[in-house]
């Protein structure tokens, strides 16, 4: 599998150098792998820190900026970051108002953020962690590590970020983040596996004529393999999975998220079918976002996330945001 890289070991370091060059408005510590919003810490503002394995860009580094994250900690490809990164990030963004860790529910992320929280608290930073676990493809959570954190991360970072920007205190920001997580569901589909630089080839085999339902964002195979379907059929399976699990009784935000290699043209066409499938299930749509936001390297496919919103959440969603990956209202 050909890649636009130098050597596999340096992929993340190279990307950080290139990210730094493209985004002088952010402070990028390439060596220590922490991306911080310029000017942080902001007086009286709760600091938002997230992070996770690389390979999901623009998540998380692309969501650092006004109205969203204060810092992001990129790990190796598909490998959660180490505690040192989060400790450093927490120290960099804490104004005294405390720090929120937004942690996707994977064993590695959970353990590393947990260690970091303990170390940061030892250094006098008040840390609250919220777990993102929106992926309905993981069902029997008694026998698993629990639902994975995927697309809802964007909703949580945006909405909690807007609240923090307005000066909400730590417990309120954390409560909003938990509310968004509880109100969000995601289901993902892969048409092809992704290739990690370390492996140099696809992380699993997906024959022509088949697709993988219920995939995560780490090149893991999904839970079920089926014969290839049309965009409309995929939308039905996907929307049914999230709607039947959430049972929304009000308007939702919709994220139609590309896994990386699926052209935007196809993604928009898929969105048309997702909107149809939601309308058929009488789910009113408040806002729709279509694009590559929570990716899985060069995987082809898409995920759909819905999040039921009340007026407050919708207001916070619409609030100004200015980051490399998401920008509006400012």
């Amino acid at each position, binding site marked *: 599998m050909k890649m636009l890289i130098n050597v*596999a070991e340096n992929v993340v370091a190279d990307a950080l150098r290139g990210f730094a060059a493209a985004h002088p408005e952010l402070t990028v510590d390439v060596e220590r792998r922490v991306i911080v919003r310029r000017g942080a810490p902001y007086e009286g503002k709760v600091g938002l820190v997230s992070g996770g*394995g690389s390979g999901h860009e623009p998540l998380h580094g692309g969501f650092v900026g006004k109205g969203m994250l204060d810092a992001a900690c990129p*790990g*190796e*490809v*598909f*490998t*959660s*970051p*180490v*505690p*040192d990164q989060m400790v450093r990030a927490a120290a960099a963004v804490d104004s005294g108002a405390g720090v929120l860790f937004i942690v996707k529910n*994977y*064993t*590695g992320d959970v*353990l*590393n953020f*947990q*260690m970091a929280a303990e170390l940061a608290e030892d250094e006098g930073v008040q840390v609250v962690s919220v777990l993102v676990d929106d992926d309905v*493809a*993981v*069902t*029997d959570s008694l*026998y*698993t*590590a629990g639902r*994975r954190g995927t697309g809802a991360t964007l909703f949580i970072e945006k909405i909690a970020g807007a609240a923090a920007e307005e000066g909400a205190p730590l417990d309120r920001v954390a409560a909003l983040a938990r509310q968004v997580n509880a109100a969000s569901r995601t289901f993902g589909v892969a048409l092809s596996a992704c290739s*990690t630089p*370390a*492996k140099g080839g696809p*992380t*699993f085999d997906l024959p022509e004529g088949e697709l993988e339902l219920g995939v*995560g964002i*780490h*090149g*893991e*195979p999904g*839970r079920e393999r089926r014969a290839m379907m049309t965009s409309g059929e995929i939308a039905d399976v996907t929307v049914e999975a999230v709607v039947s699990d959430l049972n929304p009784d009000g308007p939702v935000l919709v994220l139609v998220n590309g896994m990386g290699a699926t052209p935007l043209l196809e993604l928009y066409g898929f969105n048309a079918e997702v909107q149809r499938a939601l309308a058929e299930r009488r789910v009113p749509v408040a806002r729709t976002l279509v694009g590559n936001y929570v990716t899985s390297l060069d995987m082809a496919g898409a995920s759909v996330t819905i999040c039921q919103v009340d007026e407050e959440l919708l207001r916070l969603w619409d609030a100004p945001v200015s980051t490399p990956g998401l920008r509006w209202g400012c």
Partner: protein
Amino acid sequence: MNATPDPEAPVDAAFVRRWLDAAAAAMDRESARLTELDSPIGDADHGTNMRRGFLAARTAVEQDPPETPGGVLVLVGRTLISTVGGASGPLYGTLLRRAGKELGEEQAVSAARLRDALRAGVDGVAALGGAGPEDKTMLDALLPALDALTGALDAGGGAADALAAASAAADEGAKATTPLRARKGRASYLGERSVGHQDPGATSSALLITALAETARGDV
């Protein structure tokens, strides 16, 4: 350091450093295989993770070598935590840090104390990760190794033989993860489809225990 190691207390800082060299060499050599094992039921990074961590640990120890076996283990554990990431970083880091802490300031320890240290480390892994036997994790190599080590020592065996038994048990345990259905870590997302694949973490654990046996045997 002991030029002629005390047969009753064979494990000193030099021993642990020899083990570290052997472990780092094993991770370097087996990196591709571990990543390969991590592909069908994981995210294809376990070999890269372990290789990165152990090479860093060796460098850290070379740069500022602790004088006690416990000190070396703690430094290795801390370095793993700071350089690996993923699930294996905190877990292996905790394993070795706890083991090292158990040994305290002792300059050289017996095989029985090494067993105590391993037990403390394994308990730490279980407490941190919440996994138990047959969850298809590194514990499925570590727990049998601990049992075999304990059994051999209780039966009056010497350090080298006891560690050889532990190594065999760890190997067995790693292989026995193949038919299991994963209940922890990434592989658990696959449900039934995780069956039929050997767990990468159990495999790396077996490699680490094997390095320990080789060190005791004087092979390294």
